[in-house]
């Protein structure tokens, strides 16, 4: 067992341990922090597999974006030290049984499959220039169409987020009505019919 193998087992133990803590911790903020550690461990696994670009994207998007978003929403919806109620024992027991069964099933399948090794002996290195060229290639094996589709998806998700999370104003109470006493001339006579007469009387 050489150093690379030891590093791999350390990284995997780190990922799995922090992931278990993330799904079992009763305080929601600690759970988010354990999730952050687990995602950093996955990025370290990408570094170990020598795909530095995916590791960088993982750190930027997950650690810098998604976890920060989750922590913001925790602060918006919870008191920061509050504990969640424990799930009932029956639910823990049965979901543990289901998960262990699923894991052992997949373990048996993976261990017995026997993957045939790579046909080429070319070493696996991923330069960022190759990723960029193939990503924006319009010929065969180019990924420009999914790239554009995913950019439209991001735009739609952004607009959708704004529309969903926007506070809807109840009917009758317009936003402009609050600003009416400051500049009480042109903007108000559309909103409040009573003041229209007053404005006209002032002018005459």
């Amino acid at each position, binding site marked *: 067992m050489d150093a690379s193998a030891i590093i791999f087992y350390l990284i995997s133990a780190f990922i799995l341990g922090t992931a278990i803590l993330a799904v*079992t911790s009763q305080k929601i903020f600690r759970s988010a922090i354990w999730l952050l550690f687990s995602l950093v461990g996955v990025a370290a696994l990408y570094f170990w597999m020598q*795909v530095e670009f*995916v590791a960088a994207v*993982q750190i930027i998007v997950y650690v810098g974006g*998604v976890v920060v978003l989750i922590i913001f929403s925790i602060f918006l919806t919870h008191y920061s030290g509050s504990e969640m109620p424990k799930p009932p024992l029956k639910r823990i027991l049965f979901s543990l049984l289901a998960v262990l069964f699923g894991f052992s099933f997949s373990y048996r399948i993976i261990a017995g499959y026997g993957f045939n090794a790579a046909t080429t002996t070319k070493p696996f290195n991923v330069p960022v220039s*190759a990723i960029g060229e193939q990503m924006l290639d319009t010929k065969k094996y180019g990924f420009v169409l999914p790239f554009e589709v995913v950019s439209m998806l991001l735009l739609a998700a952004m607009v959708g*987020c704004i529309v969903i999370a926007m506070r809807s104003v109840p009917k009758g109470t317009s936003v402009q009505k609050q600003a009416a006493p400051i500049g009480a001339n042109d903007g108000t006579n559309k909103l409040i019919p009573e003041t229209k007469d007053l404005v006209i009387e002032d002018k005459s």
Partner: protein
Amino acid sequence: MSIPLTHILFVSTALFFIGTYGLFTRRNLITMLMSIELILNSVNINFVAFNKYLYPDKLNGVFFSLFIITVAAAEAAVAIAIIINLYRNHRSIDVEDVKEMKN
């Protein structure tokens, strides 16, 4: 290469089922979203590992994991917008408390 492919697959399978356990036991929307993130990460590990070990002359697994990361980020943003809207209407983000669309 000292580590066989199956060991990386065991790690990602374990991560997937840890996420599934969280999805089964939690009843809070934010923690369920965190479990979904764990599941998507395990899928990404699988794609990159298959690309590295079985087809080292191609890049398709890397592209798939990049697109999955993008879609996961969009999904997390929309989910959090829905969660905040739900909290504003119900003062709670527990899935047992929301009964509008039942019966």
